[in-house]
């Protein structure tokens, strides 16, 4: 029998369509059909200046906007060869890690909801709301903050935000324990996740899987450690890994990751350096807003950058970050003009989803739900 799952199905976390060929309750073949959310982002960015492309990146994986901003601005900064002030780097790390916690909270809530544990999502969204409030104060936006700029961040942290972040960070480890009391030793949870959707180390690497899904299979690969960026080498954290590579391992890896992210935010907050928040390069970064109204040179600079952008050297760069779902990379080819010649986005969910048939073929149809939940896909970045 053939069953068409999606594109409108609550457990596919968006508009994913999977065609399942069944023999009784066993899946013989699974064919995912992505593309329902294709917006042509790569094509669109080719007709925008480098600054204008930042808001597009927010809309890739909309649960991880700060991380997407970071990957893109890192690529452009590498292309330009400019240095970012330390304070901006620390703020970026702090925001990216808060965003990772928020993204993992959505994953945990919806994943548990799919499997039937409804309680958890209310707790998760309670904490996520606090993070979004912090983002709102810092950046002005909750879901799509567009906070990062090429060369730094758009504005400095507002007064009093540090206390709010601190109180969140102090309370969060207890919240994780709270989630664990609901799931980790819950017999129904164990039966639905242990030994389900197993993928071996070798297969996971071959299928290009990255992020918590790869680490659940026991591969210690994290871009933050392997190719440190934005001062990650100055933070003390561990990479949690699983052993079997099943849904349960991915669950525990993500829980531990949230705790480490929390610790990184704490460290960044403690050691937050003073200084400028954006590089001062008159060809690339905008002048301070106050100067624009007083000084004609700054006004011209503002006008030139907003209307024409800047012209990076001819070349190609690839920069990647560890986003909440895995390795998010931007490959930018410049022909020396003010628009990217090629704007390629390597998104983690795309590769992770391609391994879905490998994980579910031969298992029960009910397991599809828990496996899709466990690889944590977001269709916004698969279809781009």
């Amino acid at each position, binding site marked *: 029998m053939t069953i068409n799952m999606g594109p409108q199905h609550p457990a596919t976390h968006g508009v994913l369509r999977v065609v399942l060929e069944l023999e009784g309750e066993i899946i013989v073949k699974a064919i995912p059909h992505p593309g329902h959310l294709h917006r042509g982002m*790569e094509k669109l960015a080719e007709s925008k200046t480098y600054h204008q492309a930042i808001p597009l990146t927010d809309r890739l994986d909309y649960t991880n906007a700060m991380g997407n901003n970071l990957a893109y601005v890192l690529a452009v900064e590498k292309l330009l060869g400019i240095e970012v002030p330390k304070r901006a780097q620390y703020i970026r790390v702090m925001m990216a890690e808060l965003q990772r916690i928020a993204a993992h909270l959505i994953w945990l809530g919806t994943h548990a909801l799919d499997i039937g544990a409804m309680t958890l999502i209310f707790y998760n969204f309670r904490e996520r709301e606090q993070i979004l409030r912090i983002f709102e104060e810092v950046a002005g936006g909750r879901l799509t903050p567009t906070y990062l700029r090429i060369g730094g961040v758009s504005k400095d942290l507002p007064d009093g935000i540090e206390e709010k972040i601190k109180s969140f960070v102090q309370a969060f480890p207890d919240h994780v324990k709270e989630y664990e009391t609901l799931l980790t030793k819950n017999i129904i949870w164990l039966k639905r996740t242990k030994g389900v959707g197993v993928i071996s180390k070798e297969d996971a690497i071959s299928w290009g899987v990255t992020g918590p899904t790869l680490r659940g299979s026991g591969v210690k690969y994290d871009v933050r450690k392997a190719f440190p960026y934005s001062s990650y080498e100055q933070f003390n954290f561990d990479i949690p890994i699983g052993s079997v590579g099943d849904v349960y391992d991915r669950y525990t890896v993500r829980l531990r990751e949230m705790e480490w992210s929390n610790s990184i935010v704490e460290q960044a907050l403690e050691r937050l350096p003073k200084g400028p928040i954006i590089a001062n390069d008159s060809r690339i970064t905008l002048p301070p807003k106050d100067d624009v109204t007083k000084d004609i040179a700054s006004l011209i600079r503002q006008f030139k950058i907003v209307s024409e952008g800047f012209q990076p050297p001819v070349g190609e760069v690839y920069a990647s970050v560890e986003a909440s779902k895995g390795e998010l990379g931007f490959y930018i080819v410049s022909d020396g003009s003010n628009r990217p010649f090629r704007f390629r986005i390597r998104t983690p969910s795309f590769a992770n989803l391609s391994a879905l048939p490998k994980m579910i073929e031969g298992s029960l149809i009910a397991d599809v739900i828990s496996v899709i939940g466990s690889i944590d896909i977001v269709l916004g970045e698969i279809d781009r």
Partner: protein
Amino acid sequence: MFAAVSKSKDKSNKTRLREDKEVAEINLAVKKLKEKFQNSILEILTFRGEVTVLVSKGEIFEIGQFLHSDPDLQYHLLTDLCGLDFFPQVPRFEVVYHLCSIKNNQRLRLRTKVGDNESISSVESIWKVANWYEREVYDLFGISFENHPDLRRILLWDGFEGHPLRKDYPVEGPDFDKPFIPEV
């Protein structure tokens, strides 16, 4: 003032170029590839510390297999595979492979030129993830891959005309602001 700025920029660029050269020289993969595939390695480029190897299309599969299986290199992770369109240059397309060796913490980029209406051999049997990446390149650029098990469109629907990421494809199509009325 401006002259002074540009001078210091030049200097930093020069040191960077030197560093880049060193990066290429000490790169084990480049050395091994040069020994093994003399005829297929066309050029080694370095930019911002990243090594790019331009290879000819004919031996791309063998090169991929070598980089994957060599015990000192172990490029087991195909991070990305994408296309480039240099219209109106000839040959028109390039296929770009981003490889990563988890063992050595090394990245390597391969680029190979593909002409219009030409095909290139698939690397799906080396890295499984290439299955979807090659489908995407086929979908958006129209480059076809030999020995691909399932080459069909992935993001756009069957029956879509054209390949949007080609440079001669408009950003706003002819039906851009027209209402879409499906035939019933």
